[in-house]
């Protein structure tokens, strides 16, 4: 009886403690953020070592998966290659024409962004979140809200920056929301992650005509995220009866399973 009572008291204390912590965390206090930053910094060296040690296993799984899908991938790439060849000659002419017009108008070419190369040292892929940890933080000039890209396109945005590491919310995270455009029609929308880990382009009116394969880029309305970064292409469109907007699913250009090195856009 005594032991049971003691157990219940301990459980009660833990529950109350958890409820207090949950409430403080939910209110989003600076204290919680500070503790998170300190914890990230403290565990970063060990986490990095563990990640590097086990990375070959993840690579092996990735390679096996790629090998199994090779035939299908080759077919898709061959088709894409023939389309790109068609576009190539047209684009060269357009580039020459564009440069000539810029010179005439006195408009400067877009400057390259200042970036910081970072290595992925951790994944967090729960039902309610898709995040990665990078080995760069405030000591390297990384701030919250900065965009993260790789050679394929947009990866996500920094949500928490500690001294020597930071956490990045991927674009398929259910809480992710990024301003975007359809490249061909210039229509504005929001790229948002779904609960099913898919990515959607929301707030596109039903009357807008969109095509499967249309490319999505970031819009110019992001605070720290530059415009015209490739996000993905439209995979499917649908419309529900009660909604004034289309339901558009996007296939991202980035393969989140193969993230290893990324660039943080500093400005």
């Amino acid at each position: 009886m005594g032991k049971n009572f003691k157990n219940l008291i301990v459980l009660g204390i833990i529950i109350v403690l958890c409820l207090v912590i949950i409430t403080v965390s939910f209110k989003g206090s600076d204290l919680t953020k500070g503790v998170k930053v300190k914890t990230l910094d403290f565990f970063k060296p060990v986490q990095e070592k563990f990640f590097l040690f086990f990375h070959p296993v993840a690579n092996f799984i990735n390679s096996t998966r790629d090998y199994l899908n090779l035939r299908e991938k080759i077919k898709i790439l061959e088709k894409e290659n023939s389309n790109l060849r068609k576009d190539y000659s047209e684009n060269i002419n357009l580039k020459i024409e564009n440069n000539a017009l810029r010179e005439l108008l006195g408009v400067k070419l877009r400057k390259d962004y200042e970036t910081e190369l970072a290595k992925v040292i951790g994944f967090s892929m729960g039902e309610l979140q898709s995040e990665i940890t990078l080995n760069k933080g405030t000591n390297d000039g990384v701030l919250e809200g900065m965009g993260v890209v790789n050679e394929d396109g947009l990866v996500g945005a920094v949500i928490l920056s500690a001294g020597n590491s930071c956490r990045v919310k991927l674009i398929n995270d259910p809480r992710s929301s990024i301003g975007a455009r359809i490249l061909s029609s210039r229509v504005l929308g929001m790229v948002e992650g779904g609960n099913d880990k898919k990515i959607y382009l929301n707030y596109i009116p039903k009357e807008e005509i969109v095509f499967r394969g249309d490319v999505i880029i970031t819009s110019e309305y992001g605070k720290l995220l530059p415009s015209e970064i490739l996000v993905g292409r439209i995979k499917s469109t649908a419309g529900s009866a009660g909604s004034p907007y289309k339901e558009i699913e996007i296939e991202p250009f980035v393969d989140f399973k193969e993230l290893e090195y990324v660039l943080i856009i500093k400005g």
Partner: protein
Amino acid sequence: MKLTYKVLHFFILAACLILQIAFVENLKLFSVNFDLILVTVVAISLMDGVIFGAFCGFAAGILLDLMTGGGIVGISAFAYAASAFIAGKLIEAGLKQRILSFTFIIFLVTEINLILVSVIHYLFNFNIAISELGLELLVKPVCNIILMLVIFPLIRIGMHREYVIGFNNKEKT
């Protein structure tokens, strides 16, 4: 001696926590959904007692929440502490310390843990994808049961006969 085991088990849990974040989370991308921390916390609860198990669950959960950035801190701590408590109570209630019982406990605790976390998130206005949750309710217990076959003997290493839990019932003379 018991204290030595408790300290050792706590360090194993710390290593599992790092392993979960640095490697096991990565496997979720391939739809392999192990919960290394849950299985270790349950094993500790069964071998070191309910209170120590619940404390370990709380500590590991808090650290996990702090290290995985965006979510609300405290939810995992609550879920793991409750899981450890439930597992310990099931054994105290009369379940025999055999591999079948442990399989049942891991299955039950994983399901409760998933539902508990989803309900708390729902109460805090998060959207829950029922189809995803349903899939996880099917896949995660199976993965955790496989993991149990590795973690339970690891936690048991060096312990006396009275702590031996079903994996080797015949004692050498």
